[in-house]
């Protein structure tokens, strides 16, 4: 049967395209996205045959979780920040809030992320370098000094020791007189992507998963407005995955958490509504938009079909987005402003619920205050000047975007089948499957850059000799001294017996299956340090070591 579309497409190919190609061939024989996905020349109605375009705010939410898009509420402009001592970072937060930031996002340093105190030999040279150092409740108090936790939302990028850091935040709220039930914010708390990509793990996968389900259970009862997890593709992508791998591994991680929660005896609709996601906004504009749209649909359908979720909030995928750090270049750093703006625009067109824009200097160092402000201004220009936030899912119905959305969905389902066959994501990780997939993609990408099949402006093309440097933030060594002195003073001022009693109680609880949040809260109130609490759990749970693959 010949349809009208077929006929006109064939006629176009014969009468218009082929003479044009004969006269001037295309720039390349094959066009691909930055992920290496082949892209057709033209997309037409044929490519979306059978597509039913759902309405926004309704299942399966491909066009967004809100019926009014950003017309009701813009995305949250949440800039990730942290360096040096809690006092240094507290000052940066106040700057960001004064500049119109609408949420805080804490970057912790490596010792904190790895559950080590500043005096641990492994913390050498790392204190306050990549983020803020938070060793005990005293540091958390200083970090939020003069900031009312009842009036802001806070995202905390913390994974292995998420329970300890969250407990510190809760106790600060308690001391400020803020009701836990009103607290709003997000814990990253996503250990699976640590094993897969970012590698900031402490305990082995199974006890790590138990800590996470403990947080799910605790928050369902005590902090109903808190996002208990931010299932993250960001780091998977930064480690070199394709857009599809990011999508597939992240959503499959999400399903793994739901499964473990259900297996721990929680009811799916009691905790799934507080799960959130975190995606990368990379450089290939349409592929990123398609990824976000596909993510919402896949999640809604999987939650309904795999877990029988009934609560609408369990089906709606909410996500934070951050522009791609790995796409930034040290060369010609001002180009990064443009990269970030385009990436941020794709996140907005993909329906991100909150967004971080990277600063132009981040291939060189942590951002200066001026660079961080410019990054925030980039979001504000998109929100208030470009007009893109005034229409719901403005690219919905685009042949290309819809076809790409469907391809991403089908590709993710294929990955799900492979991982399901392995027995789930924990098993897949134990076999090194996602790790190898990502390493392979990272290497293929690098080869394309080396061969200049992938142009990176200022790096492998349009290179400038004798570039002038820009001013960067130099985090000096003083944070380490300050934090060491503070730790020593803490040792003298706290009640040592109360600390050791609380740590003994934590150890005893870790040997049972009871929820670990209450004993962790008690230890935090006694000013036990993150290193002390994690050491107890390292003793009980052991430490994870990966088999390195290249």
């Amino acid at each position, binding site marked *: 049967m010949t349809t009208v579309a077929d006929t006109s497409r064939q006629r176009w190919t014969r009468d218009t395209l082929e003479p044009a190609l004969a006269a001037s061939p295309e720039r390349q024989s094959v066009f691909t996205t930055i992920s290496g996905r082949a892209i057709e020349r033209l997309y037409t109605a044929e490519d979306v045959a059978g597509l039913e375009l759902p309405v926004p705010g309704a299942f399966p939410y491909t066009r967004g979780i809100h019926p009014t898009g950003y017309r009701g509420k813009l995305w949250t402009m949440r800039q990730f920040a942290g360096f040096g001592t809690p006092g240094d970072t507290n000052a940066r937060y106040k700057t960001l809030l004064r500049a119109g930031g609408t949420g805080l996002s804490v970057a912790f340093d*490596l*010792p904190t*992320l*790895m559950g*080590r105190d500043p005096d641990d*030999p*492994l*913390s*050498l*040279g*790392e204190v306050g*370098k*990549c983020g803020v150092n938070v060793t005990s409740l005293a540091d958390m108090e200083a970090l939020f000094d003069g900031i009312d936790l009842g009036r802001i939302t806070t995202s905390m990028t913390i994974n292995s020791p998420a329970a300890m850091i969250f407990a510190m935040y809760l106790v600060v709220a308690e001391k400020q007189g803020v009701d836990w039930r009103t607290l709003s914010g997000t814990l990253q708390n996503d250990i699976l992507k*640590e094993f897969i990509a*970012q*590698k*900031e*793990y402490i305990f082995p996968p199974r006890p790590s998963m138990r800590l996470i389900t403990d947080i799910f259970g605790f928050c369902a009862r005590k902090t109903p407005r808190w996002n208990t997890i931010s299932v993250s593709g960001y780091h998977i992508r*930064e*480690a*070199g995955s394709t857009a599809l791998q990011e999508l597939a591994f992240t959503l499959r991680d999400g399903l793994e958490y739901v499964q473990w929660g259900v297996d721990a005896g929680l009811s799916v609709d009691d905790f799934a509504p507080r799960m959130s996601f975190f995606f990368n906004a990379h450089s290939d504009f349409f592929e990123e938009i398609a990824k976000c749209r596909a993510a919402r649909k896949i999640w809604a359908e999987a939650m309904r079909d795999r877990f029988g979720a009934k609560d609408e909030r369990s089906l709606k995928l909410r996500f934070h987005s951050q522009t791609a750090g*790995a796409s930034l*270049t*040290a*060369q010609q750093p001002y180009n990064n402003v443009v990269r970030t703006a385009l990436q941020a625009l794709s996140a907005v067109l993909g329906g991100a619920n909150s967004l971080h824009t990277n600063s132009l200097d981040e*291939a*060189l*160092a942590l951002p200066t205050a001026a660079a961080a402000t410019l990054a925030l201004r980039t979001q504000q220009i998109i929100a208030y000047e470009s007009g893109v936030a005034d229409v719901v899912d403005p690219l919905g119905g685009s042949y290309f975007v819809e076809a790409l959305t469907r391809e991403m969905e089908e590709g993710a389902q294929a990955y799900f089948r492979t991982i399901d066959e392995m027995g789930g994501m924990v098993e897949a990780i134990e076999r090194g499957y996602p790790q190898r997939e990502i*390493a392979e993609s*990272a*290497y293929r990408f*690098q080869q394309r850059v*080396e061969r200049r099949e992938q142009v*990176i402006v200022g*790096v*492998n093309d349009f290179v400038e000799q004798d570039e002038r*440097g820009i001013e*960067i933030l*130099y*985090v000096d*060594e003083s944070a380490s001294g300050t934090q060491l002195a503070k730790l020593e003073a803490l040792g003298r001022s706290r009640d040592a017996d109360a600390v050791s009693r609380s740590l003994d109680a934590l150890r005893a609880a870790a040997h049972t299956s009871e929820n670990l949040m209450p004993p962790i809260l008690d230890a935090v109130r006694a000013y036990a340090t993150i290193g002390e609490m994690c050491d107890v759990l390292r003793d009980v749970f052991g430490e994870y*070591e*990966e*088999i*390195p*693959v*290249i």
Partner: protein
Amino acid sequence: MRKLRVVIAKPGLDGHDRGAKVVARALRDAGMEVIYTGLRQTPEQIASAALQEDADVVGLSILSGAHNHIVPRLMSLLKEKGLDDVLVVIGGIIPDLDIPKLKATGVKGVFLPGTPMQEIVDFIVGNARARDGYA
């Protein structure tokens, strides 16, 4: 002829291993023998690996800013073990201000983000210790 032997190491607490792994593969594809230590190696562990593996080259990947502490310690350990002739190179996020300090400790090559793999390969081939029988 024996191949150049390279130990690629990731010291410090940082887990961002994309760069280390991509460089390791590129060196392997360029015909070198590459040993990747994995994450969170102390300077002591790296120096021992260099000795045990009879390394001609040690490549470090550091993105966390801890290089000013880690590198001098490693360099003095290598010296103690009589491995002064091992070529040490480092890649990662290194502020310009720190490059002369690192070179003063004996690090020969510092490679910043965006460095082509071929440049690293060429540098290693051109600077690794010359020993009989090595390619």
